[in-house]
């Protein structure tokens, strides 16, 4: 009840049961900027490059796509459009019963500090 909330409220302090201060060592760590940020992020697994989403659309909207490989299913992809980007394309392939659905959603890109979701 009230005891589990912060100590700021008017809880009576019992001598000998005060909450100890947090040790200083937990607050004065230096940001570990140097080693971790210097390294590149881990490489994307190569098999994820075989997405079907970038299959050329020039064969007309009715032309069926090849089946996506099972390893790329349920991964979210973002399209590599050249800058300036005001629109971003997100896509993913998933399975519905025995068929594959490749969905692409075009979203506007928020700029200037507003958060984009």
């Amino acid at each position, binding site marked *: 009840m009230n005891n589990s909330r912060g100590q700021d409220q008017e809880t009576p302090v019992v001598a000998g049961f005060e909450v100890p201060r947090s040790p200083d060592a937990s607050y004065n760590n230096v940001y570990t900027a140097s080693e971790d940020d210097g390294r590149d992020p881990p490489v994307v697994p190569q098999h994820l490059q075989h997405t*079907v*989403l970038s*299959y050329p*659309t*020039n*064969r*007309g*909207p*009715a*032309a*069926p*796509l*090849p*089946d*996506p490989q099972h390893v790329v299913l349920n991964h979210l992809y973002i399209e590599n459009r050249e800058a300036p980007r*005001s*629109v971003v394309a997100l896509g993913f392939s*998933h399975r*519905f*019963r025995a*068929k*594959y*659905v*490749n*969905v*692409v*959603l*075009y*979203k*506007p890109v928020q700029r200037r500090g507003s958060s984009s*979701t």
Partner: protein
Amino acid sequence: MIPRFPVSKPPPGITGDSMEIDGDPFHQPETVPKILEADVELSRHRISVFLSTHTAYELLPESGKVVALDVALPVKQAFHILYEQGISVAPLWDHDVGRFVGILSPLDFILILRELGNHGSDLTEEELETHAISAWKEGKLQLTRKFDGNGSLHPRRLIDAGPHDSLKDVALKLLQNKVATVPIITHDGSVPQLLHLASLTGVLKCICRHFKHSPASLPILQQPICSIPLGTWVPKIGESNGRPFAMLRPNASLSDALSLLVQAEVSAVPIVDDNDSLLDIYSRSDITALAKDRAYAQIHLNELSIHQALQLTQEASATYGFFNGQRCHMCLRSDPLHKVMDRLAIPGVRRLVIVEAGSKRVEGIISLTDLFKFLLG
């Protein structure tokens, strides 16, 4: 409803067009086989059974691609994306409510273009860069009431179907709401998932595939289409369904064509020469070709002729290498129904122009909607 059919000897007193040579509006060189009411009923029944026992899941391809647009996208960006992807229609996703809320279709672009050209309107070309689809849709309802006073033409809420709905329900939804596509959305997971965009073409393809090997089970398939009360015909040739038949010359202005496409509730207008011979066809989905090089910014609708607009469409196909195939799909009045159905089942073909053999004079049009209205009774 008992349809009337042309018979070889009409009773005297039937008014014929005064331009007819022999004053007999139903005269044809060969006698038209009379269609049996029983055949029609049997075929309709069998098709109805088939459609009721198969689901929308069958419409999905093995591996299909479907494109959706966020409803916050500016209209201009949306225009370009549709053009770039070679599609004419896309469902709209609203992130705030977490579901699909509508469809962006060629009719929207036609209305936007008309608003741009309308000097009294609030919509300018600069605003298109920031005018979101959602804002457009909200303002659209007032616009359409201005045009035809019939707000129900454009549904405000999304018409969708589920993958387990029967094909019959999907077809009826398409017909009754007068829409060309219905998104198939599943609500199984936590988020609605878009699976496919269903249209009458897909349903027809299922029907043709199913009955291909047993043509005898649908007796009306062998009947020539001139004997079936189907489609819109030029008056004085065959049975007219009462609607005026719209055609245009290539030098007509684009804004005339767009007016027809909006107000006459047709989805395509045949373009003919002075002899009424078919040259090309301008349909609502051709409007996305105007996005090429921002052509819509430089044109005034009254100054652009249909001929020029069609050239833009051809250039658009060349740029993106779209497999365009034939633009106008035609058939003869003597063609049997199954031939017409097979042609209409080709993806991208929504209507066939009935022409006279040799001269290509336009005699009528049969659209997917006409066909399904007839088949579903």
